[in-house]
């Protein structure tokens, strides 16, 4: 464990020294503000409380989009996994959805939902929904057929078969898709806020860009990076626990 933390410290030190060296060489805060300045700005943002409102709005949109995606993915993913006809009908639709570039959604979002809270939320949903759905479908389809036979021989009630066999088999797939999604959701919400938002960290980056305040761009980016890393760690821990249980 100690060795692991030591290596982590080394890698953080490398990032900071590269950043520091780069900012010294460039010598212009407008192009590349250094880590010290960025951390100072971060501290200011937290002390003044300026950061909390955008942080809250971004988190609400990201988690809202993720929850919405998870809700619909569970329904459609299970239906596709269990019923072959639905799988054949829905799979091309879901794959098409997955292939639509985020910029197209952004362009349409302005027209459909306007600039505001809803557009980033729906864009997060639309980005994550296909990924989670396909993963859940895969999980349900991968269910151990031998366990299903056992359930048939012993006449297990449908509720138990669903809960203990289908759902439990899909669980590692659900968690691993959430892990992938948790990384993507912060990036997606930030892009959406940048383009079609009126609040949140993405919007703050957009404002900072117009004000040529590169230090703020860096400070808000650092927060987004931390959010991404923290949520990945949480889901990674969860999925490891699932994998241990499943094996």
């Amino acid at each position, binding site marked *: 464990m100690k060795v692991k933390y030591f290596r982590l410290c080394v890698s953080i030190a490398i990032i900071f020294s590269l950043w520091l060296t780069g900012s010294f060489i460039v010598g212009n805060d407008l192009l590349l503000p250094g880590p010290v300045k960025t951390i100072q700005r971060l501290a200011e943002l937290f002390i003044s409380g300026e950061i909390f409102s955008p942080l809250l709005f971004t988190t609400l949109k990201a988690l809202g989009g993720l929850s919405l995606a998870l809700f619909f993915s569970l329904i459609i993913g299970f239906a596709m996994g269990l019923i072959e006809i639905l799988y054949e009908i829905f799979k091309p639709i879901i794959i098409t959805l997955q292939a639509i570039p985020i910029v197209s959604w952004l362009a349409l979002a302005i027209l459909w939902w306007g600039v505001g809270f809803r557009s980033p939320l729906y864009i997060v949903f639309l980005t994550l929904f296909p990924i989670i759905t396909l993963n859940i479908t895969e999980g349900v389809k991968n269910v151990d057929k*031998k*366990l299903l*036979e*056992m359930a*048939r*021989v*012993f006449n*297990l009630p449908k509720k*138990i078969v669903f809960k*203990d*066999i289908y759902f*439990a088999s899909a669980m590692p797939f659900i968690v691993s898709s959430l892990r992938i999604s948790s990384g993507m959701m912060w990036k997606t919400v930030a892009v959406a806020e940048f383009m079609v938002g009126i609040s949140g960290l993405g919007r703050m980056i957009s404002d900072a860009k117009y004000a040529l305040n590169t230090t703020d761009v860096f400070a808000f980016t650092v927060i987004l990076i931390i959010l991404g890393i923290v949520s990945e760690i949480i889901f990674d821990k969860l999925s490891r626990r699932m994998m241990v*249980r*499943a*094996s």
Partner: protein
Amino acid sequence: MLLNIQEINKAFGTQTIIEKFSLSLQEGEFLSILGSSGCGKTTLLRLVSNLLKPDSGKIDRNYKRLGFVFQDTRLIPWKNALYNVSVVSSESKAKIMLSEVGLMEHHNKYPTELSGGMERRISLARALSIEPHLILLDEPFGSLDILTREDMIKLVLELWKKHNFAAINVTHDPYEAARLSTRVLVVGKHFTKTQMHELGSPLDRSETDNANIRNELLKTLKSVLD
């Protein structure tokens, strides 16, 4: 009659697995079906348990509850031993059966935490917890070491004596068939050639009797395969 199989046929594609096979089973009987690997023994159990339908012929089932001990145990890997048994019956019955197979102290362990022999015993406890009239055993001692297998044979006989269920045990091991059965059906390829050995209660036999029966069964097995 508990089970009556009349002239069933089963093929997968063009490959015949079982041809014109008939068999009947009385209550409390312990029948072993002895045959070489791939002769269709497992398919027969799948037909009896209604996991497969015969292409033709008829299977009359005059029992209410059927237990199945699968070759690969088929325990739910993410559930502990107690849950795996109680899921088919009830917690109280599961606890009784786990005690009878000697695993009550391991009731909260997961299948991966148990040895192969323990997993078989859990699987046996699961099948018995429903108080079956008929129990199907699909090579239940395959891949176990000799000592564990010996313990399992003793355990199955003990439980058979106590619960008085009928059993169909499929195996490729003549010694195991000799140890356990009241009757042994030796089968050749596709069940076309078969020969029945009536043995009487396995509880009354000595080691020497079983050794002699084993030799006889081996001879029969060779002859039906010719």
